C-alpha cells in the first residue's frame, strides 16, 4: 500500500509547517524553523462559540417551553398535543436547516448495512422490554400509579394509529433531527465530539421532565449520540428510536 515514490520524496513522519512549509515532524506543536504554532485557534473563535451556544440555548428553550406548557390544564387534549408536536418538529427542522450546508451531511446514509440496522432494532426492542417492566414497577412503588400511554388516545377515532404516530413516528424523526442532528452538530463546533455527545444526551434526557426516568433516558441518549457520531448518519438512530418507542406502544396495543 505504500507508494514508493511518495515515500522517497516525503518521509512519512514529517508534514509541512502550516506557515513556512518546511517539513517538520508530525505532532510537533511548533515549527523548528519559523516558530509558528501548528494549531491556531482564531481569536474570534470564542465569540463564535458563544454565539453558537446561545443559538443552541434558544432551540432548547423553545422545546422546554412547549414541554412545560403541558403541565397547565389549558393545554391538555389532542389538539394541543398536535400543536406542541408541530412546534417542536418545525423548530427542529428550522434550526437544522439554518446551517444546511454542513448539517445535510448527516442526512446521508453512506454506510447502509441491513445487518447493522437489524442489530440496532433488536437492541432497541430488548432495551424497551427491560425499561417497560422497570418503569412500571417504579411507577407502582413510588407513585402507586399505573401509567398508560394508550388511554389518552383511546377515546378518539383511529386511536391506535394516533398512538403510534405521536409516540413512535414523530418523536423518532424529529427528536433525532433536533437533538442528534442540530444540537449534536452545533455542540461539536464548540467542543470535541465526546463532550458534545454527553451534553446533547443529558439535555435530551432532562427535557423529558422525569427524574425517575433518567436511569434509562441518559444511557438511551448516550447510545443514540454515539451511533450518530460513529456511523455519521442520523438514520440508524431514527430507526432505533422508532423501534424502542413502538415496542412501548405495542405493550399496550397487543
Amino acid at each position: 500500500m505504500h507508494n514508493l515514490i511518495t515515500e522517497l520524496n516525503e518521509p512519512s513522519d514529517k508534514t509541512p509547517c502550516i506557515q513556512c512549509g518546511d517539513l517538520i515532524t508530525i505532532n510537533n506543536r511548533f515549527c523548528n524553523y519559523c516558530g509558528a504554532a501548528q494549531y491556531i485557534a482564531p481569536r474570534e473563535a470564542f465569540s463564535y462559540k458563544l454565539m453558537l451556544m446561545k443559538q443552541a440555548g434558544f432551540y432548547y428553550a423553545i422545546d422546554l417551553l412547549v414541554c412545560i406548557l403541558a403541565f397547565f390544564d389549558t393545554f391538555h387534549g389532542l389538539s394541543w398535543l398536535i400543536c406542541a408536536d408541530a412546534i417542536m418538529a418545525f423548530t427542529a427542522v428550522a434550526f437544522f436547516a439554518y446551517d444546511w450546508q454542513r448539517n445535510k451531511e448527516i442526512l446521508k446514509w453512506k454506510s447502509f448495512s441491513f445487518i447493522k440496522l437489524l442489530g440496532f432494532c433488536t437492541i432497541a426492542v430488548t432495551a424497551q422490554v427491560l425499561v417497560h417492566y422497570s418503569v412500571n414497577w417504579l411507577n407502582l412503588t413510588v407513585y402507586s400509579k399505573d401509567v398508560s400511554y394508550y388511554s389518552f388516545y383511546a377515546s378518539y377515532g383511529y386511536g391506535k394509529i394516533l398512538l403510534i404516530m405521536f409516540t413512535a413516528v414523530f418523536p423518532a424523526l424529529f427528536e433525532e433531527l433536533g437533538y442528534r442532528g442540530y444540537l449534536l452538530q452545533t455542540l461539536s463546533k464548540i467542543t470535541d465530539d465526546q463532550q458534545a455527545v454527553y451534553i446533547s444526551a443529558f439535555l435530551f434526557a432532562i427535557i423529558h421532565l422525569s427524574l425517575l426516568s433518567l436511569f434509562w433516558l441518559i444511557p438511551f441518549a448516550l447510545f443514540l449520540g454515539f451511533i450518530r457520531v460513529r456511523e455519521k448518519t442520523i438514520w440508524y438512530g431514527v430507526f432505533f428510536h422508532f423501534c424502542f418507542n413502538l415496542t412501548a406502544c405495542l405493550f399496550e396495543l397487543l
Partner: protein
Amino acid sequence: MDITTNPADGTALCNSCFTKIDLNDQFCNNCGYPLKGTEEEQRIFQSTRVVNEIDMADYKKKLTNAANTLYYLCGIFVVYGLITFFLKKDDDDVLAYVLPNFILAIVFLALGGYTKKKPLACLISGFSLYIIVLVLNAVSSPATLIQGIFVKVIIIGFLVRGIKSAIEVDRIKKENNLA
C-alpha cells in the same frame, strides 16, 4: 546566548519548557521559544507565556468555583430531601416527594465530580438542570421563584462563568501546550 543543558547528560534543553532541543533548530518544537532569537524576542516570548499561565490559573479557579457550586446544589437537595422525609414520613406517598430530591442530589454530585475531567459537559448539564428545576418549581408554586433569589443568581453566575472559562481553557491548552 546561554543554552540550558541537562545536568545528567549534557544535552541541550529549551530555556522555556526544558524539553530536549536540537542545536540546529531556530525554535523549540514543543513550545515555540525562539532559541536563536534576540534577547528582546526571547523576553517577549517568556512574558507572553507568563500571561497565558496566569490566565490559565484564573480560568481554572473559575472552573473550581463552578464545580463547588454543583457540590453546593447537591448539598441543598440532600437537605431538602431530609426535611421532606421528616415532614412526610407517615404519608403513603413519602417516596414520591423525597426521591426526586435525592436523585437531583446524586446527579449534581456526579456532575460536580466530573467537572475536572469534562468541564464543559458537566457545567452546561448542571446549569441546564438547575434552570429546569427552577422553572418547574415556579410552575407549581410561583412564589418560590423569589425566595432565595439572591443565592439563585449567584449560583447561576458561577455556573455561567464556569462555562465561559471551560471554552477558554480549551483554547489556551491547545494553542500553547500548557498543562
